[in-house]
């Protein structure tokens, strides 16, 4: 097994100089900002017949954020993957446009300016991470403290009143945030750090039970304990989406670290047991499963369309090309239109074409994250990049699959798109870490060390 080498090396052969692709990134950023500005104008034209008065403000704000982030990358991470930042800006911009559009359909609602504020904070943190975090391996040292902090963050909302049936929010005055969002990064760091050190022991030692080699308790114990604590807290808070995400993240990282497919089998088995157990115990979850299996059932039963049915109606109405921004009837979807169900509005107003473009952006973002992980040399960095990319991928799948009736609805936010401050900030930190690590991965070998 390779131990982390003293110098972080990139997986590129020496030879012709590596192009930094910073200008590509700049061009893509300009395109991303322009697409968002066009989106604003379309909303205004379709609803009022003219461009919104504050389009210049939004455009300049998004443009300045993009340029500042780009400057930070150009200065401190010149070899970073040129796709990560533009995709994040474009997703964030699309999110702002759709939230602004939904504001227009909701009297006395102004979620878009708040979202822009959170986005600014997110980009600020992105810049801070890119500038200040010189070497991602420093994070390895704080893995256990991070896990503890994450657990505290997760437990805190129990002291606060539930919102829509889930105790996952901390509300202080006008501010409210979901600590579970931050916890997922800390958890990924912990898993990466623990697995990087213990992967051999996990894969090779222990007793054989039936056909499967069970790791020794003192190796598996700590990680299983932490993971169980997280999932347990989340189940108590009925935050199914996040528990599903943490579970999936654990299984993916365990498999990547140990290459033991048996973990996946065990993971799926445990997931099934957990799902059935929770579905049986919690009427909240039981209802969601019923709605998933028969989304139009409540109509036949005379109770009118539920949210999944309304979501499917919205998607269907969009068809291939969508109604155009501002011309859908997404207000019929109900209260979570700007958060959990924002994809339904995108499906209705931008159609299948728009959804495909969006999915493509996510697929590109995720594959760039995995690519960064594979290109890195140190096991911790590799596992962390892969874990972060998996978080984005799993989260997109869980929330989009829920509103598209592919899987039961669990209630999560679409990364960068959905309304929600903690979500936007967290995702910007994920991008910052990936940018930071991709700079290391793509940097050519220093001449004196060849």
């Amino acid at each position, binding site marked *: 097994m390779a131990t982390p080498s003293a110098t972080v090396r990139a997986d590129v052969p020496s030879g012709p100089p590596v192009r930094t692709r910073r200008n590509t990134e700049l061009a893509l950023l300009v395109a991303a900002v322009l697409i968002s500005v066009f989106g604003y104008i379309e909303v205004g034209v379709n609803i009022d017949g003219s461009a919104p008065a504050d389009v210049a403000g939004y455009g300049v704000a998004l443009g300045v954020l993009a340029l500042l982030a780009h400057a930070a990358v150009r200065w401190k991470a010149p070899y970073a993957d040129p796709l990560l930042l533009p995709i994040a800006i474009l997703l964030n911009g699309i999110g702002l446009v759709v939230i602004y559009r939904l504001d227009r359909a909701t009297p006395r609602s102004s979620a878009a300016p708040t979202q822009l504020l959170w986005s600014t904070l997110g980009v600020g943190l992105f810049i801070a991470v890119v500038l200040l975090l010189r070497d991602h391996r420093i994070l390895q040292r704080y893995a256990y403290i991070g896990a503890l902090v994450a657990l505290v963050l997760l437990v805190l909302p129990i002291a606060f009143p539930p919102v829509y049936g889930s105790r996952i929010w901390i509300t202080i005055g006008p501010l409210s945030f979901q600590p579970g969002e931050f916890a997922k990064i800390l958890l990924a760091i912990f898993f990466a750090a623990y697995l990087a050190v213990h992967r051999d022991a996990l894969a090779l030692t222990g007793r054989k039970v039936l056909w499967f080699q069970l790791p020794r308790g003192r190796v598996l114990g700590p990680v299983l304990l932490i993971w169980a604590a997280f999932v347990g807290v989340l189940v108590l808070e009925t935050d199914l989406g996040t528990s599903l995400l943490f579970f999936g993240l654990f299984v993916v990282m365990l498999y990547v670290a*140990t290459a033991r497919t048996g973990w996946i089998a065990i993971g799926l088995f445990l997931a099934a047991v957990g799902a059935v157990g929770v579905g049986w115990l919690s009427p909240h979850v039981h209802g969601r499963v019923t709605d998933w299996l028969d989304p139009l059932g409540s109509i036949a039963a005379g109770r009118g369309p539920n949210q999944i049915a309304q979501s499917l109606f919205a998607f269907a109405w969009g068809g291939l090309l969508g109604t155009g921004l501002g011309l859908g009837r997404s207000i019929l979807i109900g209260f979570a239109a700007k958060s959990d169900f924002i994809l339904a509005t995108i499906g209705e107003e931008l159609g299948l074409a728009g959804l495909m473009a969006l*999915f493509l952006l996510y697929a590109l973002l995720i594959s760039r994250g995995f690519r960064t992980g594979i290109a890195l040399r140190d096991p911790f960095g590799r596992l962390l990049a892969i874990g972060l990319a998996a978080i984005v991928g799993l989260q997109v799948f869980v929330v989009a699959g829920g509103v598209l009736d592919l899987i039961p609805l669990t209630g999560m936010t679409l990364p960068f798109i959905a309304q929600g401050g903690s979500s936007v900030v967290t995702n910007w930190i994920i991008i910052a870490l990936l940018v930071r690590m991709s700079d290391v991965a793509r940097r050519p070998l220093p001449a004196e060390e060849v």
Partner: protein
Amino acid sequence: MRRHHRAKGDSSGGPQGLPGISTTGRRAGTFCVLLIVALAVQATRVQVFQKHELDHNAANQRLTIQRYDQPRGNILVGGEPVTGSEPTGGRYDYKRTYTDGSRYAAVTGFSSQTYGNTQLEGVYDDLLSGTDSRLASWAVWDTVARRQNPGGDVHTTIDPAAQQAALKGLGRQQGAVVALEPATGRILALASTPSYDPGGFAGSGTVDRQAWDRLQADTDQPMLNRALRQTYPPGSTFKVVTAAAALTAGVVDDINAPTGAPSPYVLPGTTTELVNDTSACDRPNLSLDTAMVLSCNSVLGYLGVQVGLEGMVSMAERFGFNDAELDVPVRAARSNFDTVMNRSQLALSSIGQYDTAATPLVMAMVAAGVANGGRVMYPQLVDKLTKSDGSSVQVMEPVVYKEALSSAVAGQVQRLMTDVVENGTGRNARIPGATVGGKTGTAQHGVGNSGTPFAWFISWARPNGSDDVPPVAVAVVIADSDATDVTGGGLAAPIARSVMQAVLNGR
């Protein structure tokens, strides 16, 4: 457990030959991307393959909201809209209004957010609501761009003066009037009383629902379209068909020659005499002309039997009987003349009794066919369909329904009908300065003929000195009158006269 070979080129391969992170990471990445692919597949399923089903789900309000988010196209009478649209301020932006709802209800039908669309509002719903593909200037592009076209207009053939005369004549009685332009089949008046206001329940509120419930509970059935959708025994007005059949079959050659009809006429195979309303008919060998002028049951019943079942059925069907798909374009009820009968039943049917039943529309077609030289035109309620800017979508051309009579026979029947008005039961329809042909009918019905008789009159009129096809033919039926002496000549003929005068004066 199975050992894997170390992945090629992976310097940090997994422990003891297990695949390294490069390999497992790639697999995990592929898995995550496959999850996104699964989302794309599901989105395609919902947005393409389940689209139609979901869009048309009764609980999905989108189609309904879209339908009402722009003013509906209008129905026009004499170039003026008799409908409108007004903003509601609710979830459904616009609702239907009617400028004089009860006058044109039998023409327009209703368009209600709660109860749907009927008659012209129903038949041309796509055009009026703007979804008809013919409204699109660039059909393919409009579909792609989801451009919603403004609703088109339906121009009716109704003559406002004739419609007004018909409703005024009917007054508070239960009845119906259909006026046709014989040469083209255009419907000039279509009235049914008592009428209703379709604007009363166009919206979706409580008031609308109450108005609807009241109309449904009304025993006078104001929402029944008696002109198109209700059949009545036509009584003696059917004798026009029988006379035409007798002349066509050669049973009678000369309308003034003796017919050989016996008196009294005993229904074949029975001992029952076919009685007449007037004793003037109780003579043998009356001419067809005299029999029509006096409306003699015995003579026409006898002639119908002489013509035979086949000839009578054939003649009735040429005027629109037994046609279950008479669309004007609103579908009319099927008028009936039995195709299987014994001879006594045929005798009764030949004077418009037994199972014979006709809509006012078909009886107007009888009068119009005779007036048009024997050629029955397909009745039509709509002149043309236009876009909101007035450009034509479709212009209706006159269509021949059936060549019912030879022009010679038609001329003879016209003579019979003018004699009825000049010398007989139809005197109340005479118009100074015009030639009028008509036929009265007073149809018994109910158990033992206990019901108030249906008073009928069918007629046509042309200005004196004109050789053209008469510009108007009318059928009037009064179904339930308070009058003590209910006869076609007394009750129905004056209404026919005023409708015909309205048309003649307007020319």
